């Protein structure tokens, strides 16, 4: 019974995901051919709208603010694109490409595959090899992933601030309530990640950064698994890029003499060999955070792709009978993704700690 009760949120999640999907894909089915690649790409990429679901042909969509920096800051709703003027371009091979030009405040801009371009003097986009050649304004829009970031940060705050308040109010006692849930995670990061990888006397300085990193990634991984949310923040290269850069900066700013010595004059290596070694070591500084960036992005994106692809089996075959195959497999992957959500957060944090640990390590020969 207890096991079943524990499973309930997962089952509920899977059911929600399927229900939202059914309506979404069902709407598509009536009008056009179901395109798996498009559905998947639409999900894993960022968007200027937040499409929650479609019920009986009615879309539940939040149009997010567009912020453009182009001779001043321009702020308007993305509705001007999603409900804008549809234009077409016919290239020299005779293929027709359609895009949407903005109306109202969005006048003079067009959106093509969620990217915003400036229209040329004819009020059109020019294409070359299916890509617009027009200039792009700086796009600082509050996209779906930005909203997801804020939401993720809010959830982290909601988890951690009550814990801090609990300790502030009750002093150094055994945790209760929310603190009971959060404290083991904090201890996990402090003991198994920070203390295990960074010198015993230096690890304390890095614990807040590692804690924030772990909670932010884990919470956003989990939010990405909530079906109706439909966000893929930690599977966005932009976010993993930011986190990897911060990990790199943390490593470089804490690096001591010993670290640089190992890069530019590795002890015990003959000088002729250094000519080869030094460039490799310098590249190595950057490949470490690069691997962090790609690992998190690829793992989370892959998980999302697999789940959508498995559910899409039903819609490709246009037969509910396929649900018997697709649902158990999608459920299995969803449960696996719960593990991956934690695992990737742990790995990112642990490897960051490892790199910092390597940078602050003292020479011991």
């Amino acid at each position: 019974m207890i096991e079943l009760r524990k499973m309930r949120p997962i089952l509920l999640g899977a059911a929600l995901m399927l229900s939202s999907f059914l309506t979404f894909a069902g709407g598509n089915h009536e009008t056009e051919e179901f395109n798996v690649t498009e559905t998947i790409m639409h999900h894993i990429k960022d968007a200027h709208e937040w499409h929650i679901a479609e019920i009986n042909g009615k879309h539940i969509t939040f149009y997010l603010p567009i912020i453009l920096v182009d001779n001043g800051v321009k702020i308007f709703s993305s509705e001007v694109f999603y409900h804008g003027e549809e234009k077409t371009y016919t290239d020299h091979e005779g293929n027709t490409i359609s895009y949407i030009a903005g109306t109202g405040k969005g006048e003079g801009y067009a959106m093509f595959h969620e990217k915003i371009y400036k229209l040329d003097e004819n009020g059109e986009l020019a294409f070359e090899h299916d890509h617009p050649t027009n200039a792009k304004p700086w796009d600082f829009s509050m996209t779906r992933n930005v909203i997801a970031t804020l939401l993720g940060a809010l959830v982290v705050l909601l988890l951690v601030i009550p814990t801090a308040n609990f300790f502030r109010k009750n002093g150094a006692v055994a945790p209760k309530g929310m603190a009971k849930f959060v404290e083991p995670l904090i201890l996990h990061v402090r003991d198994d990640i920070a203390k295990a990888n960074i010198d015993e006397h230096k690890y304390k300085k890095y614990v807040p950064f590692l804690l924030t990193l772990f909670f932010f990634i884990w919470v956003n991984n989990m939010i990405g698994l909530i079906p109706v949310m439909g966000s893929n923040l930690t599977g966005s290269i932009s976010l993993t890029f930011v986190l990897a850069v911060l990990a790199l900066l943390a490593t470089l700013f804490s690096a001591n003499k010993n670290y640089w010595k190992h890069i530019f004059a590795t002890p015990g290596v003959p000088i002729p060999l250094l000519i080869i070694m030094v460039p490799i070591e310098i590249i190595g500084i950057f490949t470490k955070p690069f691997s962090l960036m790609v690992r998190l992005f690829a793992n989370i994106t892959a998980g999302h792709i697999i789940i959508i692809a498995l559910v899409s089996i039903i819609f490709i075959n246009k037969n509910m009978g396929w649900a018997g195959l697709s649902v158990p497999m999608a459920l299995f992957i969803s449960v696996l993704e719960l593990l991956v959500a934690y695992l990737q957060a742990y790995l990112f944090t642990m490897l960051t700690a490892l790199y910092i640990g390597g940078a602050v390590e003292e020479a011991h020969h």
Partner: protein
Amino acid sequence: MDLITPNVGLVFWTGLVFVILLVLLTKFAWKPILGMINKREQDIAEALELAKKTRAEMAALQSQNEALLKEAKAERDAIVKDAREVATKMVEEAKSKAKAEADKMIEDARTAIQTEKNAAMADVKSQIADLAVEIAEKIVRTAISDDSKQQELAAKLAGELNLN
């Protein structure tokens, strides 16, 4: 391609949010929480140390008590033993004293008897001497005729007299 190209706007916003979150949490959450957890761990370590110390003290106290008890028992045993010895000695002494007294009394009695006996004997002797003198007188009176015979007789009579 744009799937794997960081987007400037998204990089800006996510970076901003993350850094703000990092600063806020460090100041208002991680530091107080970690501080309290550290303090609690220290408290626990101290409490354990104290418990260990107290336990050691208790053990020391117990062994001390045991030693005291043992000592007291030994002392009691010694006292009892001494008392017993003294009592035995006293009894022995009393016995030997009584015996000596008795011996002395017997000795005294014996001496007294001897004295009495000697006195009685002397009395008897003197009476016998008187009797002998009386007998001799009678004999002398009867057989005074012959001097030799008288003497012979006297000697014979004297010889026969046995002084017990």
